[in-house]
């Protein structure tokens, strides 16, 4: 095989892996939008908050330490040296469920039957408020997140592919980050679990009923509020997974909340109401932007296509298929 072809395959493969990382964020958006019609602008901040909380629990950080010390003249920072990963992850999950409950109580409950734009604006407010609370609770330092997921280039893949190039060619194997392989495996498990949950459990069916028609679901005795808490809690869990993956890659810091912006083109492509759409959309965006950066980027003096090319793709899709690849078909009856 020619080195060019192998490089092309490597780019596509890396694009797919990056796409999975975007899909992890997009999944949270889709779940909430399906069940409540709310476009949750705070999903990126959810991921940040979950990652901050996880590191906080892992390292025994005292929440709101800075505030407490400032108010009471104390000097508390840590109350234990470390916590096992599984316990820290479990406690973070509990925290995210509690957060979902608080959001339902303080925000959603008061906005039932409001226009979608009002709910959207509320989530913008929620994003900023949650970012501020995260800062107060855990501080804004860059935090190292290690839950034992390996990272770095896969040596196995490099060695397995080095012989694929024509003899004598200057090629030293294909590169894929092991962290991204893990992200792919976890995303697959997540999607399968979500599918099984919504197909084969009573709560899952209730969730689908609410997603299909709020009024009809209410009329058969499904509690809208419990379903909302459940959906926000599940999306909080997905945000935690996304936060772990992204946080392991770059360290946990406040720019993590901006990954939500990466999910937007994914949603436009895949549709706001489809879980498979979030995955396929992510893969398409990931591959598209990597190919654009590597094969077209050189023709642009300023370069850096990787960040905005996804939006070009999304725009083109909007023009031809506004509901996205897998979104519900838009039917307007006169």
């Amino acid at each position, binding site marked *: 095989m020619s080195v060019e072809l192998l490089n092309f395959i490597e780019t596509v493969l890396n694009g797919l892996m990056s796409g999975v990382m975007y899909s992890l964020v997009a999944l949270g958006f889709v779940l909430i939008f399906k069940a409540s019609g709310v476009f949750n602008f705070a999903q990126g901040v959810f991921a940040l908050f979950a990652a901050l909380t996880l590191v906080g629990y892992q390292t025994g950080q005292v929440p709101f330490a800075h505030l407490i010390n400032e108010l009471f003249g104390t000097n508390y920072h840590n109350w234990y040296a470390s916590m096992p990963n599984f316990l820290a992850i479990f406690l973070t999950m509990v925290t995210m469920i509690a957060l979902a409950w608080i959001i339902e109580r303080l925000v959603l409950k008061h906005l039932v039957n409001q226009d979608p734009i009002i709910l959207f604006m509320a989530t913008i407010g929620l994003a900023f408020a949650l970012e501020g609370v995260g800062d107060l609770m855990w*501080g*804004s330092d860059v935090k190292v997140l290690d839950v034992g997921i390996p*990272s770095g280039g896969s040596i196995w893949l490099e060695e397995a592919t080095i012989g694929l190039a024509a003899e004598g060619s200057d090629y030293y194997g294909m590169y894929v980050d092991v962290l991204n392989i893990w992200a792919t495996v976890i995303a697959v498990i997540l999607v399968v679990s979500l599918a099984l949950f919504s197909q084969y459990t009573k709560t899952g069916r209730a969730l689908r009923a609410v997603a299909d028609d709020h009024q009809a679901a209410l009329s058969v005795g499904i509690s809208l509020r419990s379903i909302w808490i459940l959906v926000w809690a599940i999306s909080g869990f997905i945000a935690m997974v996304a936060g772990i993956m992204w946080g392991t890659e770059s360290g946990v810091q*406040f720019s993590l909340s901006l990954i939500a912006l990466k999910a937007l083109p994914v949603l436009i492509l895949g549709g706001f109401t489809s879980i498979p759409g979030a995955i396929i959309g992510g893969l398409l965006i990931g591959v598209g932007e990597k190919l654009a950066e590597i094969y077209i980027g050189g023709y642009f003096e300023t*370069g850096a296509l990787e960040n905005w090319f996804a939006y070009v793709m999304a725009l083109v899709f909007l023009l031809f298929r506004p509901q996205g690849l897998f979104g519900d078909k838009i039917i307007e009856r006169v």
Partner: protein
Amino acid sequence: MRIKQLLIGITASVIAVSSYVEMAIADLKFPMLVYRTGAYAPNGIPNADGFVDYYKMINARDGGIGGEKILHPECETGYKTQVGVECYEKNKKDAMVFQPMSTGITYQLIPKATADGVTVYSTGYGRTSAANGKVFKWIFNAPVTYWDGASIAVRHILKNNFGNIKGKKIALVYHNSAYGKEPIRTLQVLSKKHGFKLMLLPVDHPGQEQKATWLKIRKARPDNVLMWGWGVMNQVAVKSAASIKFPMDKFIGIWWSGSENDVLPAGQGAHGYKALTFNAPGDNYQVHKDIKKYVHDKGQASGDGSHFGTVLYNRGLFQAMVQVEAATVAQKIHGTSKITPAMYRDGMENVNLSAKRLEELGFKDFAPPFKNSCENHGGSGLAAVQQWDAKAKKWNLITEYMYGDSDVVQKLIAEDSSKYAAEQKIAERCN
């Protein structure tokens, strides 16, 4: 109703009296443009803490500068240029000096501050050609500029290649902003001079996703990679370089890409990564002892005090020290402790931080000596290379402080500043 009115009255009186008292005792205003929130907060906070702790220490130990207390109001910019300009407008009245902490903001403030008669000090950042004091009367960027930095990095590479880098490939991974683009011109000239091939790889804000950039590097296999990054871009770049197994000792960041924040997330993978610096790492200098004694031990540390002695905290100390020294010099020149912004500028232009003076100020061996002059607002142009030891989790200086290629840099500064002078119709001074 009466109680409510009474309470409002008391509150208003307290605010009025306290602000009067504050203004009365704080005569020298050093407004701080900071970013303690947002994507760049992890870098902005330790730097701002360094400034605040130093000012507090001067107020506590010396009673201020020549008896005049330092007032240091903070304005949050979030590293956003527009907000930075608004902060400047809000705080410019009676301000001695502005430290924008952003090249983008600095570019916007240059014409404004020049018109307003306010000193701007962009320590080792900002517009490089502002080093030419003949054109940029109110702007200072000592002790070293980005163009010096680019040429010092190339000089270090030259030294490691026995003086010959002809045919070698050097990649520049840069923040796609005014800051990141600063070294490009210099590197282009140096690539012609030394015969190396220059690869330019921009990374858009914030730099969370750089996979394509590092795939390009993996394919092109440059001999060295230079980085002009900030914030999360640095961490992702260092981690990505380790992930593709790029030799870390061939990866050199500018002084804003060489803090603990930038390397810790990569763990052992960051071992050997290099960065330029114009101040030493560590927390065992006299200035640290004084800050501990007069500020931290009294429970008045800025933030939680956890950044004490880190790279960006130390840089904040250095920046604040130069600003305070400029005020001291201005007071000496004009024979009054109550200096005006114009007098302060004179002080900044006559700063002479010799080795002896640095020792007096508690900065012995902390940074190389430098002096400003009417012609030179860019300082000594000296920087050293530091290297990250991932096992010990500390930076070590591995070279002496060295000069860049002054032939190239000075020529470029003269070209760029005279172009600016022609555009703005500025007559050269210092003749």
